């Protein structure tokens, strides 16, 4: 695989522990997880560095017709690392966001129309019905684990990610690797998806970082609201 898959440090899970966990999963309430119904494969890049790109496996659930929430893993294997999450919203909801928030969200039009965003193992005609809707949505992606630089643990602070917006951005070796593993052709898909349209009002100028890069920074902060009475730390 093109992305490095460093092994997470630690001893293998003993049988006893694994077995107990299987038993608990059978009786507890997993409703939010049972709502996850879809696997999407796409690419993200770091909002300050387009050259650092990550293959992202999204496992998505609907909150309603206009909003989805996805868990992002670095692969679709059982030992995949949970590297981030993404929220997807319709154009209508995006327009309701404060202007200061809009730049943190990216458009999906290019990813869908170019074929690089796809649903593994779902036949094209079915896949395209949902992609037609996704084409008009905006997403906010946050990664916590920088697997592309070989981290075997989730170090550092969260990174807000962006999505591809034009030809020439996606690194060819990443694209070929995914095409080969899944037996898909982005070029062929692009032709079949030519009829799809992006947001009705066009891609909002404030989306996609307003066309600029950005990054997250950690700072020390008070651990109490400014107007509260200071307490003694015992």
């Amino acid at each position, binding site marked *: 695989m093109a992305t490095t898959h460093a092994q997470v440090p630690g001893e293998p899970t003993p049988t006893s522990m694994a077995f107990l966990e299987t038993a608990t999963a*059978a009786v507890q309430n997993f409703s939010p*997880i049972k709502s996850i*119904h879809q696997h999407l494969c796409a690419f993200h890049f770091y909002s300050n560095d387009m050259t650092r790109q990550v293959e992202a496996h999204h496992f998505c659930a609907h909150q309603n017709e206009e*909003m989805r929430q996805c868990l992002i893993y670095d692969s679709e294997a059982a030992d995949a690392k949970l590297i981030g999450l993404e929220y997807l*919203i319709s154009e209508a909801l995006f327009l309701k966001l404060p202007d200061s928030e809009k730049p943190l969200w990216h458009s999906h039009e290019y990813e869908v129309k170019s074929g690089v965003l796809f649903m593994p193992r*779902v036949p094209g005609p079915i896949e395209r*019905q949902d992609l037609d809707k996704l084409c008009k949505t905006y997403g906010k992606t946050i990664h916590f684990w920088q697997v592309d630089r070989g981290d075997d643990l989730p170090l550092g602070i969260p990174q807000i990610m962006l999505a591809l917006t034009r030809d020439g951005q996606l690194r060819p070796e990443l694209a070929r690797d995914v095409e080969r593993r899944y037996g898909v052709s982005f070029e062929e898909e692009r032709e079949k998806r030519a009829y799809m349209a992006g947001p009705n009002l066009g891609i909002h100028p404030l989306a996609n970082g307003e066309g600029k890069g950005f990054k997250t*920074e950690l700072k*020390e902060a008070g*651990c109490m609201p400014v107007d509260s009475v200071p307490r003694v730390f015992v």
Partner: protein
Amino acid sequence: MQHAVPRGRLPKHPRTFPSTYLVLLPLNSSYLAVITRDTRRLDCIFEIRSKTQRRFEMASSDKTPTPNPASRPGDQPTPPGKPMTMGQHILDKGAEMMQSLKPVNQMSQHVCTFALYSHDMTRQIETHHYVTRLNQDFLQCAVYDSDDSHGRLIGVEYIVSDKIFESLPPDEQKLWHSHAYEIKAGLWVNPRIPEMIGQPELQNLAKTYGKFWCTWQVDRGDRLPLGAPALMMSPQPVNLGMVKPELLETRDAKYNISTDALKTSRVEIAEPEWINPQADYWKLHGKGFAVDVKQTEMKKITPFP
């Protein structure tokens, strides 16, 4: 729970797991008995739901969300947006049948506990962690604000053993929190799991550290996930780290449990010999952390966007 268990009679050749003192015995396709190996005493019965039954429940639970019966401070309406159309339901079901959702199927535990915002510890939330164990020293959790089908995905927490934690640089360690207190105090629970079944896992988890980023601040009324991710801290036995009683009462009522009773039953759980002082940073330094988003030059391959 009503069941047909032949009392006082144990079939031969139960499945055994040598390193535990419990035996799980399938009674039929729907029930599993848990028996203490030494005394051969029946502890409890689990009802197992087949995949078909679960799918049926998924179809019926996708109704217009009802208000959460356990109203809690900061309870907000579900995100804005139209209800799911039948067409979308059909698409989803169709896709689901063809895809394997392996990473998600690895989630093996539901944990209900509490967390506090690092930059404002007066803001406390009830959290629902869905936990996957990758190995004996590492777990990853998808965190939701409730355990119903419309639970909002509010963040991710990673949990590491003390061994891994000690290998981290100090600047990394200050972002993490310890779990010993919240487990011993009965704040951390596995809903619907008898304490006895859960205890071995709790022994292990009491020595771990966690790093929890919250991406949707539902408690302040955000109807959509706004802003930068927030660092979260764990409850601690020191004024600012104490969970508000009303939050506890609401949680306990919902699951019909008593945090106090759990605290008593967990007296046996060993305290870690030492908790690294870099964790729970605010306790020694009186400060938390926050994340800013700042514009910067983007390294590019093509013009953007």
